[in-house]
Protein backbone atom coordinates (compact mmCIF):
# COMPACT_ATOMS: atom_id res chain seq x y z
CA UNK A 1 0.00 0.00 0.00
CA UNK A 2 2.81 2.36 0.84
CA UNK A 3 4.51 1.61 -2.48
CA UNK A 4 1.31 2.59 -4.27
CA UNK A 5 1.22 5.84 -2.33
CA UNK A 6 4.81 6.61 -3.25
CA UNK A 7 4.18 5.86 -6.92
CA UNK A 8 1.02 7.96 -6.82
CA UNK A 9 2.96 10.84 -5.35
CA UNK A 10 5.72 10.64 -7.93
CA UNK A 11 3.25 10.25 -10.76
CA UNK A 12 1.10 13.17 -9.57
CA UNK A 13 4.05 15.48 -9.13
CA UNK A 14 5.51 14.50 -12.48
CA UNK A 15 2.18 15.17 -14.24
CA UNK A 16 1.66 18.46 -12.40
CA UNK A 17 5.14 19.64 -13.22
CA UNK A 18 5.12 18.60 -16.87
CA UNK A 19 1.48 18.96 -17.94
CA UNK A 20 -0.01 21.48 -15.54
CA UNK A 21 3.01 23.78 -15.58
CA UNK A 22 0.79 26.57 -16.87
CA UNK A 23 -1.13 26.53 -13.59
CA UNK A 24 1.85 26.55 -11.27
CA UNK A 25 3.77 29.03 -13.36
CA UNK A 26 4.24 32.38 -11.65
CA UNK A 27 5.79 35.00 -13.93
CA UNK A 28 7.68 32.36 -15.85
CA UNK A 29 8.98 30.49 -12.81
CA UNK A 30 8.04 26.85 -12.32
CA UNK A 31 9.02 25.14 -9.05
CA UNK A 32 11.02 21.90 -8.95
CA UNK A 33 8.38 19.77 -7.29
CA UNK A 34 10.20 16.48 -7.87
CA UNK A 35 13.27 17.81 -6.10
CA UNK A 36 11.14 18.97 -3.18
CA UNK A 37 9.50 15.56 -2.96
CA UNK A 38 12.81 13.67 -3.16
CA UNK A 39 14.33 15.70 -0.35
CA UNK A 40 11.30 15.46 1.92
CA UNK A 41 11.10 11.74 1.28
CA UNK A 42 14.83 11.10 1.67
CA UNK A 43 14.86 13.04 4.93
CA UNK A 44 12.13 10.97 6.55
CA UNK A 45 12.64 7.55 5.00
CA UNK A 46 14.87 5.30 7.05
CA UNK A 47 15.04 2.45 4.50
CA UNK A 48 18.13 2.97 2.44
CA UNK A 49 16.94 0.91 -0.52
CA UNK A 50 13.63 2.71 -0.75
CA UNK A 51 15.39 6.05 -0.71
CA UNK A 52 17.76 4.84 -3.40
CA UNK A 53 15.00 3.61 -5.71
CA UNK A 54 12.80 6.63 -5.23
CA UNK A 55 15.68 9.02 -5.61
CA UNK A 56 17.00 7.46 -8.79
CA UNK A 57 13.50 7.13 -10.27
CA UNK A 58 12.64 10.73 -9.57
CA UNK A 59 16.03 11.89 -10.79
CA UNK A 60 15.63 10.00 -14.07
CA UNK A 61 12.07 11.32 -14.46
CA UNK A 62 13.18 14.88 -13.76
CA UNK A 63 16.13 14.59 -16.08
CA UNK A 64 13.96 13.16 -18.83
CA UNK A 65 11.55 16.09 -18.71
CA UNK A 66 11.63 18.36 -21.69
CA UNK A 67 14.23 21.08 -21.38
CA UNK A 68 16.11 19.48 -18.49
CA UNK A 69 19.76 18.43 -18.31
CA UNK A 70 19.56 14.68 -17.83
CA UNK A 71 23.02 14.05 -16.44
CA UNK A 72 22.98 17.10 -14.23
CA UNK A 73 19.56 16.36 -12.78
CA UNK A 74 20.30 12.71 -12.09
CA UNK A 75 23.60 13.46 -10.41
CA UNK A 76 22.54 16.55 -8.52
CA UNK A 77 19.25 15.15 -7.28
CA UNK A 78 20.85 11.93 -6.13
CA UNK A 79 23.58 13.81 -4.32
CA UNK A 80 21.05 16.14 -2.74
CA UNK A 81 18.95 13.21 -1.57
CA UNK A 82 21.98 11.47 -0.04
CA UNK A 83 23.03 14.64 1.73
CA UNK A 84 19.58 15.45 3.05
CA UNK A 85 19.18 11.89 4.27
CA UNK A 86 22.39 12.44 6.21
CA UNK A 87 20.95 15.61 7.67
CA UNK A 88 18.14 13.65 9.26
CA UNK A 89 20.64 12.32 11.76
CA UNK A 90 22.47 15.60 12.30
CA UNK A 91 21.73 19.00 13.78
CA UNK A 92 18.76 17.63 15.64
CA UNK A 93 18.28 20.87 17.57
CA UNK A 94 16.97 22.36 14.30
CA UNK A 95 13.38 21.37 13.51
CA UNK A 96 13.01 18.82 10.73
CA UNK A 97 11.05 21.06 8.34
CA UNK A 98 13.68 23.78 8.65
CA UNK A 99 16.45 21.37 7.84
CA UNK A 100 14.60 19.99 4.85
CA UNK A 101 13.70 23.42 3.50
CA UNK A 102 17.25 24.72 3.93
CA UNK A 103 18.59 21.72 2.06
CA UNK A 104 15.92 22.22 -0.57
CA UNK A 105 16.85 25.89 -1.00
CA UNK A 106 20.54 25.08 -1.44
CA UNK A 107 19.85 22.17 -3.80
CA UNK A 108 17.38 24.09 -5.94
CA UNK A 109 19.73 27.06 -6.22
CA UNK A 110 22.73 24.90 -7.10
CA UNK A 111 20.88 22.78 -9.67
CA UNK A 112 19.27 25.84 -11.22
CA UNK A 113 22.57 27.74 -11.36
CA UNK A 114 24.38 24.74 -12.81
CA UNK A 115 21.68 24.29 -15.42
CA UNK A 116 21.93 27.94 -16.47
CA UNK A 117 25.68 27.75 -16.56
CA UNK A 118 25.66 24.65 -18.73
CA UNK A 119 23.20 26.18 -21.18
CA UNK A 120 24.41 29.79 -21.33
CA UNK A 121 28.07 29.35 -20.29
CA UNK A 122 27.78 32.45 -18.12
CA UNK A 123 26.25 33.57 -14.88
CA UNK A 124 25.31 37.20 -14.38
CA UNK A 125 23.54 39.05 -11.61
CA UNK A 126 20.47 39.32 -13.82
CA UNK A 127 20.26 35.54 -14.13
CA UNK A 128 20.71 35.08 -10.39
CA UNK A 129 18.11 37.66 -9.37
CA UNK A 130 15.76 37.14 -12.28
CA UNK A 131 15.75 33.36 -12.57
CA UNK A 132 17.68 31.40 -9.96
CA UNK A 133 16.45 33.19 -6.83
CA UNK A 134 12.77 33.22 -7.87
CA UNK A 135 13.01 29.55 -8.86
CA UNK A 136 14.64 28.67 -5.54
CA UNK A 137 12.16 30.72 -3.51
CA UNK A 138 9.19 29.25 -5.33
CA UNK A 139 10.53 25.70 -4.91
CA UNK A 140 11.02 26.27 -1.18
CA UNK A 141 7.50 27.66 -0.85
CA UNK A 142 6.11 24.61 -2.63
CA UNK A 143 8.28 22.41 -0.44
CA UNK A 144 6.74 24.07 2.64
CA UNK A 145 3.28 23.29 1.32
CA UNK A 146 4.16 19.73 0.34
CA UNK A 147 6.05 18.87 3.54
CA UNK A 148 3.12 18.28 5.91
CA UNK A 149 1.12 16.50 3.21
CA UNK A 150 3.94 14.16 2.24
CA UNK A 151 4.80 13.41 5.84
CA UNK A 152 1.17 12.81 6.77
CA UNK A 153 0.50 10.48 3.84
CA UNK A 154 3.79 8.57 3.68
CA UNK A 155 5.12 8.75 7.24
CA UNK A 156 2.06 8.77 9.48
CA UNK A 157 3.86 7.11 12.39
CA UNK A 158 6.40 9.91 12.60
CA UNK A 159 3.62 12.37 13.35
CA UNK A 160 2.55 10.62 16.48
CA UNK A 161 3.82 12.14 19.71
CA UNK A 162 5.44 9.64 22.01
CA UNK A 163 5.41 10.40 25.70
CA UNK A 164 7.91 8.54 27.78
CA UNK A 165 7.16 8.62 31.48
Amino acid at each position, binding site marked *: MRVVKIIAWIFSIYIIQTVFG*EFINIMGTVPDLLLAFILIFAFHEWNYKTVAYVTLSCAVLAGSSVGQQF*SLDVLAM*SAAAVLVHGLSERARFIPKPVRVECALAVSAAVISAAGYFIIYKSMGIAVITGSILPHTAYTVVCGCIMYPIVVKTLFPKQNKKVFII
Partner: protein
Amino acid sequence: MDFFSKKWRVVLIAAAVIAAAGFAADHFIGFNPISTAVNFVASPVQSGFSYIAHAMEDARDFIWDMRAYKADNEKLESENIELKRANRDSASYREENERLRELLDLKTSMDGSYTTVAAQVIAYSGDNRCERMEINKGTLSGIAVGNAVITPDGIAGKVTETGPDYAVVTTILDSSSAIGIKVSRTGGSGLVEGDEELSKDVWCKLSFMDKNTPIIVGDIVETSGTGGIYPAGLVVGSVMSVSADSTGALNYAVINPAAEIDKLREVLVINGTK
Protein backbone atom coordinates in the same frame (compact mmCIF):
# COMPACT_ATOMS: atom_id res chain seq x y z
CA MET B 1 25.11 8.41 9.57
CA ASP B 2 28.15 8.81 7.50
CA PHE B 3 27.46 10.87 4.40
CA PHE B 4 29.74 8.71 2.38
CA SER B 5 29.11 5.31 3.81
CA LYS B 6 29.35 2.44 1.42
CA LYS B 7 25.66 2.07 0.75
CA TRP B 8 25.28 5.72 -0.13
CA ARG B 9 28.33 5.59 -2.23
CA VAL B 10 26.55 2.90 -4.21
CA VAL B 11 23.62 5.23 -4.77
CA LEU B 12 25.87 8.03 -5.93
CA ILE B 13 27.82 5.69 -8.16
CA ALA B 14 24.60 4.38 -9.66
CA ALA B 15 23.49 7.94 -10.30
CA ALA B 16 26.85 8.78 -11.82
CA VAL B 17 26.68 5.72 -14.06
CA ILE B 18 23.18 6.60 -15.22
CA ALA B 19 24.20 10.21 -15.80
CA ALA B 20 27.34 9.21 -17.63
CA ALA B 21 25.46 6.71 -19.74
CA GLY B 22 22.92 9.34 -20.64
CA PHE B 23 25.58 11.88 -21.42
CA ALA B 24 27.62 9.45 -23.49
CA ALA B 25 24.62 8.23 -25.42
CA ASP B 26 23.50 11.76 -26.07
CA HIS B 27 26.98 12.68 -27.21
CA PHE B 28 27.73 9.69 -29.39
CA ILE B 29 24.41 8.55 -30.81
CA GLY B 30 22.53 11.83 -30.64
CA PHE B 31 19.82 10.87 -28.20
CA ASN B 32 19.44 9.61 -24.68
CA PRO B 33 17.78 6.18 -24.67
CA ILE B 34 16.82 6.48 -21.01
CA SER B 35 15.03 9.79 -21.56
CA THR B 36 13.52 8.43 -24.73
CA ALA B 37 12.19 5.36 -22.94
CA VAL B 38 10.78 7.43 -20.08
CA ASN B 39 9.14 9.89 -22.45
CA PHE B 40 7.84 7.03 -24.63
CA VAL B 41 6.02 5.58 -21.64
CA ALA B 42 4.98 8.92 -20.15
CA SER B 43 3.88 10.59 -23.36
CA PRO B 44 0.44 8.90 -23.73
CA VAL B 45 -0.32 9.61 -20.08
CA GLN B 46 0.81 13.21 -20.43
CA SER B 47 -1.22 13.47 -23.61
CA GLY B 48 -4.36 12.35 -21.77
CA PHE B 49 -3.78 14.76 -18.93
CA SER B 50 -3.01 17.56 -21.36
CA TYR B 51 -6.66 17.47 -22.49
CA ILE B 52 -7.70 18.12 -18.92
CA ALA B 53 -5.04 20.81 -18.59
CA HIS B 54 -6.18 22.54 -21.76
CA ALA B 55 -9.80 22.40 -20.67
CA MET B 56 -8.81 23.88 -17.33
CA GLU B 57 -6.75 26.55 -19.05
CA ASP B 58 -9.67 27.47 -21.26
CA ALA B 59 -12.01 27.63 -18.29
CA ARG B 60 -9.54 29.68 -16.29
CA ASP B 61 -8.87 32.04 -19.21
CA PHE B 62 -12.58 32.43 -19.75
CA ILE B 63 -13.14 33.33 -16.10
CA TRP B 64 -10.16 35.67 -16.03
CA ASP B 65 -11.20 37.29 -19.27
CA MET B 66 -14.82 37.76 -18.26
CA ARG B 67 -14.15 41.19 -16.79
CA ALA B 68 -12.31 42.19 -19.94
CA TYR B 69 -15.16 40.74 -22.01
CA LYS B 70 -17.64 42.80 -20.02
CA ALA B 71 -15.64 45.98 -20.52
CA ASP B 72 -15.23 45.15 -24.20
CA ASN B 73 -18.92 44.46 -24.47
CA GLU B 74 -19.83 47.78 -22.89
CA LYS B 75 -17.38 49.55 -25.16
CA LEU B 76 -18.75 47.76 -28.21
CA GLU B 77 -22.31 48.56 -27.17
CA SER B 78 -21.50 52.26 -26.89
CA GLU B 79 -19.67 52.07 -30.21
CA ASN B 80 -22.68 50.32 -31.67
CA ILE B 81 -24.97 53.09 -30.46
CA GLU B 82 -22.63 55.69 -31.94
CA LEU B 83 -22.47 53.79 -35.22
CA LYS B 84 -26.25 53.44 -35.34
CA ARG B 85 -26.58 57.17 -34.74
CA ALA B 86 -24.00 57.89 -37.40
CA ASN B 87 -25.76 55.48 -39.72
CA ARG B 88 -29.08 57.19 -39.12
CA ASP B 89 -27.46 60.57 -39.75
CA SER B 90 -25.81 59.21 -42.85
CA ALA B 91 -29.08 57.76 -44.14
CA SER B 92 -30.83 61.03 -43.36
CA TYR B 93 -28.18 63.03 -45.21
CA ARG B 94 -28.34 60.61 -48.12
CA GLU B 95 -32.10 60.96 -48.35
CA GLU B 96 -31.85 64.72 -48.10
CA ASN B 97 -29.14 64.71 -50.72
CA GLU B 98 -31.32 62.64 -53.05
CA ARG B 99 -34.29 64.90 -52.50
CA LEU B 100 -32.25 68.03 -53.12
CA ARG B 101 -30.66 66.49 -56.19
CA GLU B 102 -34.06 65.62 -57.60
CA LEU B 103 -35.29 69.10 -56.76
CA LEU B 104 -32.26 70.56 -58.47
CA ASP B 105 -32.92 68.45 -61.54
CA LEU B 106 -36.51 69.65 -61.55
CA LYS B 107 -35.41 73.24 -61.12
CA THR B 108 -32.94 72.83 -63.96
CA SER B 109 -35.59 71.33 -66.19
CA MET B 110 -38.03 74.14 -65.36
CA ASP B 111 -35.49 76.93 -65.75
CA GLY B 112 -35.92 77.01 -69.49
CA SER B 113 -39.38 78.46 -69.34
CA TYR B 114 -40.15 79.23 -65.71
CA THR B 115 -38.51 80.98 -62.80
CA THR B 116 -38.51 78.91 -59.63
CA VAL B 117 -37.72 79.29 -55.96
CA ALA B 118 -36.71 76.31 -53.80
CA ALA B 119 -38.19 76.25 -50.33
CA GLN B 120 -38.39 74.02 -47.32
CA VAL B 121 -41.61 72.88 -45.74
CA ILE B 122 -41.49 74.14 -42.17
CA ALA B 123 -44.98 73.35 -40.90
CA TYR B 124 -48.30 71.81 -41.71
CA SER B 125 -51.42 73.65 -40.65
CA GLY B 126 -55.17 73.30 -40.76
CA ASP B 127 -57.45 70.71 -39.31
CA ASN B 128 -56.22 68.14 -41.74
CA ARG B 129 -52.45 68.37 -41.71
CA CYS B 130 -52.18 67.47 -45.36
CA GLU B 131 -54.38 70.27 -46.69
CA ARG B 132 -52.15 73.21 -45.89
CA MET B 133 -48.51 73.65 -45.21
CA GLU B 134 -46.07 76.45 -44.64
CA ILE B 135 -42.83 77.01 -46.49
CA ASN B 136 -39.87 79.12 -45.47
CA LYS B 137 -39.85 81.50 -48.45
CA GLY B 138 -42.20 84.41 -49.02
CA THR B 139 -42.59 87.66 -50.88
CA LEU B 140 -39.00 88.59 -50.23
CA SER B 141 -38.02 85.63 -52.37
CA GLY B 142 -40.47 86.59 -55.08
CA ILE B 143 -43.24 84.22 -54.10
CA ALA B 144 -46.80 85.40 -54.66
CA VAL B 145 -50.28 84.06 -54.13
CA GLY B 146 -51.28 81.69 -56.90
CA ASN B 147 -47.79 80.32 -57.52
CA ALA B 148 -47.69 76.61 -58.22
CA VAL B 149 -45.81 74.44 -55.78
CA ILE B 150 -44.27 71.28 -57.20
CA THR B 151 -41.92 68.48 -56.20
CA PRO B 152 -39.76 66.16 -58.28
CA ASP B 153 -42.52 63.53 -57.97
CA GLY B 154 -45.44 65.72 -58.91
CA ILE B 155 -47.44 68.79 -58.05
CA ALA B 156 -48.11 69.65 -54.40
CA GLY B 157 -50.45 72.63 -54.47
CA LYS B 158 -50.48 76.38 -54.84
CA VAL B 159 -49.56 79.36 -52.70
CA THR B 160 -52.64 80.86 -51.08
CA GLU B 161 -51.10 83.22 -48.57
CA THR B 162 -47.77 84.96 -48.36
CA GLY B 163 -45.67 86.76 -45.82
CA PRO B 164 -42.23 88.32 -46.17
CA ASP B 165 -40.41 85.11 -45.31
CA TYR B 166 -43.10 82.49 -45.42
CA ALA B 167 -45.94 81.31 -47.58
CA VAL B 168 -48.91 79.09 -47.01
CA VAL B 169 -49.43 76.39 -49.59
CA THR B 170 -52.86 74.83 -50.11
CA THR B 171 -52.25 71.31 -51.27
CA ILE B 172 -54.14 69.49 -53.98
CA LEU B 173 -55.92 67.53 -51.22
CA ASP B 174 -57.79 70.62 -50.00
CA SER B 175 -61.45 70.63 -50.98
CA SER B 176 -61.08 74.10 -52.50
CA SER B 177 -58.41 72.86 -54.87
CA ALA B 178 -59.23 72.06 -58.50
CA ILE B 179 -56.72 71.22 -61.20
CA GLY B 180 -57.36 70.67 -64.87
CA ILE B 181 -55.77 67.38 -65.89
CA LYS B 182 -55.46 64.98 -68.75
CA VAL B 183 -54.92 61.26 -68.70
CA SER B 184 -51.47 60.55 -70.09
CA ARG B 185 -52.48 57.32 -71.81
CA THR B 186 -55.64 58.57 -73.57
CA GLY B 187 -55.44 62.33 -73.45
CA GLY B 188 -58.90 62.48 -71.90
CA SER B 189 -59.46 65.54 -69.73
CA GLY B 190 -60.90 65.94 -66.27
CA LEU B 191 -60.64 67.76 -63.00
CA VAL B 192 -58.73 66.68 -59.88
CA GLU B 193 -60.31 68.07 -56.77
CA GLY B 194 -59.68 67.80 -53.09
CA ASP B 195 -62.17 65.75 -51.13
CA GLU B 196 -62.77 66.03 -47.40
CA GLU B 197 -63.09 62.28 -46.91
CA LEU B 198 -60.38 61.17 -49.32
CA SER B 199 -57.88 63.70 -48.00
CA LYS B 200 -57.74 61.78 -44.74
CA ASP B 201 -56.04 59.02 -46.69
CA VAL B 202 -53.93 61.53 -48.62
CA TRP B 203 -55.96 60.90 -51.76
CA CYS B 204 -57.96 63.18 -54.03
CA LYS B 205 -60.75 62.82 -56.53
CA LEU B 206 -60.85 62.87 -60.31
CA SER B 207 -64.20 64.02 -61.66
CA PHE B 208 -65.87 65.67 -64.66
CA MET B 209 -64.48 62.87 -66.78
CA ASP B 210 -66.64 61.91 -69.72
CA LYS B 211 -68.03 58.43 -69.10
CA ASN B 212 -67.03 57.39 -72.58
CA THR B 213 -63.44 58.28 -71.96
CA PRO B 214 -61.68 55.06 -71.00
CA ILE B 215 -59.82 55.24 -67.72
CA ILE B 216 -58.30 52.34 -65.84
CA VAL B 217 -56.56 51.77 -62.57
CA GLY B 218 -52.93 52.75 -62.87
CA ASP B 219 -53.44 55.52 -65.38
CA ILE B 220 -51.21 58.52 -64.80
CA VAL B 221 -52.86 61.89 -64.75
CA GLU B 222 -50.95 65.10 -65.43
CA THR B 223 -51.70 68.77 -65.48
CA SER B 224 -53.34 69.99 -68.64
CA GLY B 225 -52.10 73.56 -68.30
CA THR B 226 -55.56 75.05 -68.26
CA GLY B 227 -56.29 77.53 -65.49
CA GLY B 228 -52.95 79.27 -65.74
CA ILE B 229 -51.55 78.10 -62.41
CA TYR B 230 -49.89 74.78 -63.12
CA PRO B 231 -47.73 74.31 -66.21
CA ALA B 232 -48.88 71.51 -68.46
CA GLY B 233 -47.32 68.08 -68.21
CA LEU B 234 -46.63 67.89 -64.48
CA VAL B 235 -47.59 64.59 -62.91
CA VAL B 236 -50.52 64.80 -60.51
CA GLY B 237 -50.86 61.18 -59.53
CA SER B 238 -52.17 57.78 -60.54
CA VAL B 239 -55.65 56.28 -60.65
CA MET B 240 -56.34 53.97 -57.72
CA SER B 241 -59.98 53.08 -58.38
CA VAL B 242 -62.67 53.99 -60.89
CA SER B 243 -66.44 54.21 -60.50
CA ALA B 244 -69.41 56.06 -61.91
CA ASP B 245 -70.80 58.83 -59.77
CA SER B 246 -74.35 58.90 -58.43
CA THR B 247 -75.78 60.35 -61.66
CA GLY B 248 -74.21 57.57 -63.69
CA ALA B 249 -73.02 60.07 -66.26
CA LEU B 250 -69.50 60.76 -65.12
CA ASN B 251 -66.57 58.66 -64.13
CA TYR B 252 -65.32 59.14 -60.65
CA ALA B 253 -61.82 58.05 -59.79
CA VAL B 254 -59.65 58.14 -56.72
CA ILE B 255 -56.21 59.58 -57.35
CA ASN B 256 -53.12 58.81 -55.36
CA PRO B 257 -51.00 61.95 -55.62
CA ALA B 258 -47.52 61.34 -56.98
CA ALA B 259 -46.03 63.78 -54.50
CA GLU B 260 -45.99 62.49 -50.94
CA ILE B 261 -48.03 65.38 -49.65
CA ASP B 262 -47.78 64.34 -46.02
CA LYS B 263 -44.01 63.87 -46.11
CA LEU B 264 -42.76 66.84 -48.05
CA ARG B 265 -39.47 68.41 -47.02
CA GLU B 266 -38.43 70.53 -49.97
CA VAL B 267 -40.57 72.01 -52.74
CA LEU B 268 -40.15 74.18 -55.77
CA VAL B 269 -42.31 77.23 -56.21
CA ILE B 270 -42.94 78.37 -59.78
CA ASN B 271 -43.14 82.12 -59.44
CA GLY B 272 -43.03 83.32 -63.02
CA THR B 273 -42.34 82.65 -66.65
CA LYS B 274 -39.36 83.63 -68.74
